[in-house]
């Protein structure tokens, strides 16, 4: 039965090829929602080496579903590998994004609500509070003892203008234990290398590439708000959508202060299955 399920999933994926127009961001969310009925499967990785620490790969696998045109829900599974230490599953997250204004405006707000249950996470999907290099120096055994059950809220603001996308995220996160609210930010801009589509099918046309820049970091917590004693990163980002629907993304990101990891290499792969529920209903 299990083998049959995998076969069915692969068959559906193969027959549901589509070309998503994804932004090349790894941390920042844009206001663009998943199309209703579509399921996007994404895998993001962050490779880094903190000073005086071991190299690691933080991995996130995401299942993003467009429940409505104004509501996207997403489930994450996180894990990490640390050199000279171990490979562990670090937890899960469930997020929902809601678009309160049903038309396109100059600035489009999206409300983001997430519950996460993680420990020893190294995927760096956001930086909040005083997150930084010291968090990466503990062994996995020590870090796993610190369970993080957190509620995360984001205000996502996004604009599309003359082919450019500008996105700003303001993050507030609360550990459900008795800890203060922590804050963070993420900013990004990107644009396809060409806006118009080609008149013929092609693999490496400029419109299949999107390039941009991304910056994010912490803003301290309720008792010590600010940009000190927290980490900040900046880097270019690029992605390419292949004709069979896979999107590959890459971004080298650089720590902007001593509290940050000096260099992070992020890479990801995404695949979108269109109208997945209808496909199962129709037995395709």
């Amino acid at each position, binding site marked *: 039965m299990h083998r049959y399920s995998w076969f069915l999933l692969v068959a559906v994926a193969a027959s549901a090829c589509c070309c998503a*127009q994804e932004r090349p961001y790894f941390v920042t969310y844009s206001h663009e929602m998943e199309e209703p009925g579509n399921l996007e499967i994404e895998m993001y990785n962050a490779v880094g080496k903190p000073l005086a620490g071991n190299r690691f790969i933080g991995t996130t696998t995401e299942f993003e579903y467009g429940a409505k045109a104004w509501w996207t829900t997403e489930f994450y599974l996180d894990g990490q590998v640390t050199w000279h230490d171990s490979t562990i599953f670090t937890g899960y997250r469930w997020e929902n994004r809601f678009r309160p204004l049903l038309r396109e405006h100059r600035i489009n707000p999206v409300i983001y609500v997430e519950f996460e249950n993680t420990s020893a996470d190294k995927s760096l999907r956001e930086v909040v509070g005083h997150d930084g290099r010291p968090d990466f120096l503990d062994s996995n055994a020590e870090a796993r003892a610190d369970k993080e059950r957190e509620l995360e809220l984001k205000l996502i603001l996004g604009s599309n203008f003359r082919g450019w996308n500008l996105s700003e995220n303001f993050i507030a996160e609360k550990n459900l234990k008795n800890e203060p609210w922590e804050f963070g930010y993420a900013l990004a801009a990107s644009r396809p290398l060409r806006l118009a589509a080609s008149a013929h099918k092609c693999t490496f046309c400029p419109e299949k590439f999107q390039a941009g820049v991304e910056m994010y970091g912490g803003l301290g917590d309720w008792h010590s708000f600010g940009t000190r004693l927290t980490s900040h990163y900046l880097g270019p980002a690029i992605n390419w959508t292949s004709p069979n629907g896979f999107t590959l993304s890459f971004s080298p990101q650089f720590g902007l202060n001593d509290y940050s990891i000096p260099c992070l290499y992020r890479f990801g792969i995404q695949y979108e299955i269109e109208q997945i529920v209808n496909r199962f209903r129709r037995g395709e």
Partner: protein
Amino acid sequence: MKLKRAWLVIFTMLTLAVLAFGVADGSWMRHVPAKDHDRKNPYEGQADAVAAGRLVFEDHCSKCHGENAEGTKKRPSLRSARVQQEATEGDLHWLLVNGNMARGMPSWSKLGDPQIWQAIRYVKSLGQ
């Protein structure tokens, strides 16, 4: 007294919600501003734009509206008189940028204006 007021507030909010979604129903054409209605397609008369628009349509629209834009069980045909004759290209551009989210049509502003206009060229070419 407090209970009555609570019910009144709930009733008012539900009425407003129904009205809000009613306004955003399939009668989207009534909400297109005049300046958008009158917009001309910059790709008008360009044969390449129809071919490019067909590829954009196949990538982003065909799974909901059908491979030949004939519509599917839940999504409308784009070969209808409404799309082919009543709606101007400016109206369709407005719809693609804003979507009709209460009815399941997402905003396609992420495609950018050139691809939106190309897709419209292709859709309009189906009625010629």
